[in-house]
C-alpha cells in the first residue's frame, strides 16, 4: 500500500481537494476528519451503510430466541394451572422484546466492526495523529507515476503538509 497523505487545517479546502481528486481519477481516496462532517459526506457520495442489515438480522434472531426459550421451557416443565395456558404469549413478550434489543444491539456493534474494518492492529500508514485533533486529512492510494500530480494538487489546494508513505 503506497500513496500520498495531505494534512489540511481547513474544511473548505479539504472539500475542494476531494472534488479535484475525483476529477483526476487517481486511486482510492480516504478522508480523515476529527468529527463527522456532512460536507465531506456530500462530496464523497457514499451509499447507505449496511450496518442496518446486521441490526435487522440480529433483532429478528433475538426476538425469535426470546419467545422460543420461554415457550420451550414452559412446555418442557409444564406448570399446569386450571384454565390457564401453559405457554402464555403475553408475559413472554417481555423476553421477546428484551432479547431482541440485546441481540440487535450486539449485532449492530458486530456490523460496525465488520463494515468499518475495526479492530485494526496496524494503523500507521496514511494516518497522522493530527486527524483526531483539529486537522482534516486526505490519503490517496496511488501508483508511483501518479504521485507527483496528487502531491501538486494537494499542495495547491491548501494542504499544510504533503508526504508520501508506504
Amino acid at each position, binding site marked *: 500500500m503506497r500513496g500520498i497523505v495531505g494534512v489540511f487545517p*481547513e474544511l*473548505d479546502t479539504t472539500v475542494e481537494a476531494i472534488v479535484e481528486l475525483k476529477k483526476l481519477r487517481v486511486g482510492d481516496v480516504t478522508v480523515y*476528519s476529527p468529527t463527522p462532517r456532512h460536507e465531506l459526506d456530500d462530496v464523497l457520495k457514499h451509499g447507505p451503510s449496511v450496518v442496518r442489515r446486521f441490526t435487522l438480522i440480529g433483532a429478528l434472531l433475538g426476538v425469535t430466541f426470546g419467545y422460543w426459550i420461554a415457550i420451550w421451557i414452559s412446555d418442557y416443565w409444564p406448570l399446569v394451572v386450571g384454565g390457564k395456558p401453559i405457554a402464555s404469549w403475553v408475559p413472554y413478550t417481555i423476553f421477546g422484546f428484551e432479547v431482541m434489543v440485546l441481540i440487535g444491539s450486539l449485532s449492530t456493534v458486530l456490523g*460496525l466492526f465488520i*463494515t468499518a*474494518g475495526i479492530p485494526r492492529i496496524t494503523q500507521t500508514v496514511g494516518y497522522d495523529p493530527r*486527524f483526531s485533533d483539529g486537522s482534516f486529512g486526505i490519503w490517496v492510494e496511488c501508483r508511483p507515476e501518479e504521485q507527483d500530480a496528487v502531491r501538486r494538487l494537494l499542495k495547491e489546494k491548501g494542504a499544510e503538509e504533503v508526504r508520501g508513505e508506504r
Partner: protein
Amino acid sequence: MTAVAPDAREERRNNIATADVQLPAVASYTQITDEILDTLKITKAWFLGLGIAVFCLLIGATAWFYQIYMGLGVAGYRPPVMWGVYIITFVFWVGIGHAGTLISAILYLFRAGFRTTIYRCAEAMTVFAVMTAGLFPILHLGRPWKFFWLIPYPNWRLIWPQFKSPLVWDVFAILTYLTVSATFLFIGLIPDLAVLRDRETNPARKRIYGVLSFGWRNSDREWRHFARAYLFLAAFSTPLVLSVHSVVSFDFAMANLPGWHTTIFPPYFVAGAIFSGIGMVFTIIIPLRRWFNLKHYVTLNVLDAAAKLCLFTSLVVGCAYLTEFFIAWYSGSEIEQAYFWNRVFGQWWWAAWIMLTCNAILPMLLFSQRLRRNTTFLFTLSIFINLGMWYERFVIIVPSLSHEFEPWKWAPYAPTYIDWAILLGSFGWFSMWFLLFVKQLPIMAIAEIKEIVPPRMRYPHHEPDPEGHSITPGIIGSYEVR
C-alpha cells in the same frame, strides 16, 4: 486560547432545547481537545473524594458481611414488611440510570443539541447506577451466593426459572439494560479513545489506548458506519429505557396488594425514573463544571434546557400522584381508600409529605427562568429531588406491605443501622466508579462537541477565493450546526 464568557453575560435564548445550541466561548477543535483532556489530570482533591467514596463503600461492605453472618433480621425485616430499604434502593438506582439513557439516546433521536456536552456524564452515570442497582437484589437474599438461580438455565434438579414471574422478567430487563448501556457508552468512547491515543506520549498508555480504540482512524468509512450504528443503538435504547422501569414496576403491579395492583404503575415509574435521573445529573454535573472549569461547555443555556425537562417530568410525576388518589376514591374500594388515607394522613404521613414536597411542590420553582439559570439553586433542588425520589419508593413499598387487607396484619417498619450503612455503601460504590471514570476517560464527547463548533474555514463567508474559485456552492453553504 479564547477567554471564557462569564455566566452572567451568556445570552439567553428563547428556544434552547433545539439543535442549534452554541458554545460561544469555544473557538476551535484543538481548544476542545486541550480543555477536555485537561480534566484528566490527577489532583489531590480527586484523591480525597475517591478516599471518601471507598471509605463509604467499606462501611457498606462491613454491614453486608455482618448481615450474612447474622441473617436478614438485622436488616429490619419483620413480617409482613419483608421488602425494605434494599428493594427501595434497588428501584431508586435503576431509576437514576434512566435519565442517562434519556439524555444520550432519546434526546439524540430528537436532535436536542443541549445534550451534547452532558450526555457522556449521564451515560456513565447510567452504567454505574445500574451496576449499583444490580447489587441490591443480591443483598436482599439470605443466601446471596445463590443469586444465579434466577438466570435461565436448569439450575437445580433440572428446574428452570418460572418465566411467568416478574422477578425473572427483572433479570432479563436489568441485564439487557446494563449490557446495552455499557455498549452504548463504550461505542461512543471509541473516537475519544483515539484522541487520547494520539495525544499520549507514554508508550505503555499509548498502547493501551490503541487497543481500546480498536485502531480507530477517523476515516470517512469509519464515521459513516459509526453514525449509523450509533443511531441504531440509540433507537434500541429508547424503547428499552421505557421497558426496563415498566418491568421493575411489574414487581409491584403484579402483586395483589392495595396500592400496588394498578395499571398506572409502568408510566408512573418511567416518569419518576427520568425525573430522579435528571436530579442526579444536576447533582453530578454542576460541581463538575465548576471543578473542571467547563462552564463554557455546560452553559447556563444547557442547564436551563435540562431544568425544563426536570420541570416537565415533575409535572408528570405530580399528576401520577394525584391520579393514584383519584383511582382509590373512584374505585369505591374501602381497602384502597383506607390505604391511601393511611399513606398521607396516617402512619406514613411524614414519608408521603417528604415525597410530595420534594417531587411535586419544590420543582414548581423551576417555572422561574432566573432560578433555572441559578446553579446553586439547581444543585440544592437536585439534592431534594434525590431525597424525594428515594422516599417515593419508600412510600410505594413499605405502606402497602405494612397496611394490607386485614387489620391484624398491619405492622410498623423501621430501617436499621445495617440498612443505612448499606445505603451509604451504595453511594460509595457508585461514587468510586464515577470518580475513577472522570480521571481515566473524557467526561465530554470530544468528537461530538466538535460537531457543534464551526470548523476552521479558509473562506468562512462562502466568498470566492482570490483566484475566483467558488467553494463548492451548496456543499459548504450549510456548514452551520444541524
